[in-house]
């Protein structure tokens, strides 16, 4: 049937739910170009006023960390509990600290 026909490229879709909030990844969409990706993302992801702004980016342009590197990347932060306020004991009498 459609043998070697070129597929429409894939875009990742990010939506700002309302102003004041960040754009959040909601899913992906196929489109011929970025403009069409926004039009299609609007139809697919904002049928119920889920957003006020859309970002799209070619999925192939995203560089992601490798889950295999998760330990090397994120473990070192685990033993640095002094980066959290709860690490420090402050007497109860001291207020607003």
């Amino acid at each position, binding site marked *: 049937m459609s043998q070697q026909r070129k597929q429409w490229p894939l875009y990742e879709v990010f939506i700002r739910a309302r102003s004041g909030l960040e754009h959040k990844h909601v899913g992906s969409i196929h489109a011929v170009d970025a403009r069409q990706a926004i039009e299609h993302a609007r139809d697919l992801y904002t049928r119920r006023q889920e957003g006020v702004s859309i970002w799209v980016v070619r999925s192939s342009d995203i560089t992601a960390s490798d*889950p295999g590197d998760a330990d090397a990347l994120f473990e070192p932060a685990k033993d640095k509990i002094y980066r959290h306020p709860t690490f420090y004991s402050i007497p109860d009498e001291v207020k607003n600290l």
Partner: protein
Amino acid sequence: MYTQGLDSLGADCLHQATDAVTLEQRFQSKVDADDRIEPKDWMPDAYRQTLIRQISQHAHSEIVGMLPEGNWITRAPSLRRKAVLIAKVQDEGGHGMYLYSAAETLGISRDELLEQLLAGTAKYSSIFNYPTPTWADVGAIGWLVDGAAIMNQIPICRCSYGPYARAMVRICKEESFHQRQGFEIMMTLARGTPEQHRMAQDALNRWWWPSIMMFGPNDAASKHTAQSMRWKIKRFSNDELRQKFIDITVPQAEFLGLKVPDPDLRWDEATQHYVHGPIDWKEFEEVLKGNGPCNRERLETRRRAHEDGRWVREAALAHAEKQRARETQAA
């Protein structure tokens, strides 16, 4: 499986095999801990294949599911009903898109998925192979078919595979409107003229059993259930979900003043559940095999839509390429 015949393997293979065992153990303990599996994480091939099969079947069901109802858009009895039905059918298309995207994260392309549907090698829910001869069918589909779908889908919101679970959260949010609009149609008809009441009853008569069958074969006959539950792709068995659906739906039918077409149906005081009569699994298998009332028509309609849309897809791509070329030239 990896531990069998280790003796006959060379040192390299042995190393690989133990690696695979550790990976599999790590995967399973992650699942057991209710952690989520994401696309780039290691997963057993059978897990990947099961998900591709299940998610794509689900996606195809949403897409084919647009047809029986789409049939009534031009003949909806009022502008309000028409606007609602268009919105619902559009949602179903959207659900298909969310699910195809989720399946694609497992390494299969959209084209391959569509190819499988159009070639008839992939399955979709047997329910959509039944016809919708009257307007009451639109009500019955929303109330029963979407009701059964919700029952099936809510536990999948907690599925171990992240993208599938996230798609399902989105779908479940939208599905509730589908069921309520269906019930409203049934209520309007059931409380209408005697002829309208008869229409509602007739639709319930035709959709009840196919809806019950939507939960799939009995637990004893369901070959995928045990493994899927271990992988937390599935959280409840077919029979458990079916029972839940019946317990919730029978009182709704009574409220409508309609009779569930099951002469053996009775309330069991001891178990606090309804007991239903035997299910005609032969019919279910026949419809699955492709011999339902509308199998051929549904697939033909999909194929035609796909072929008729081909020039649009190709032209849009060619246009975008031309624009890009022009932009690079101007730069």
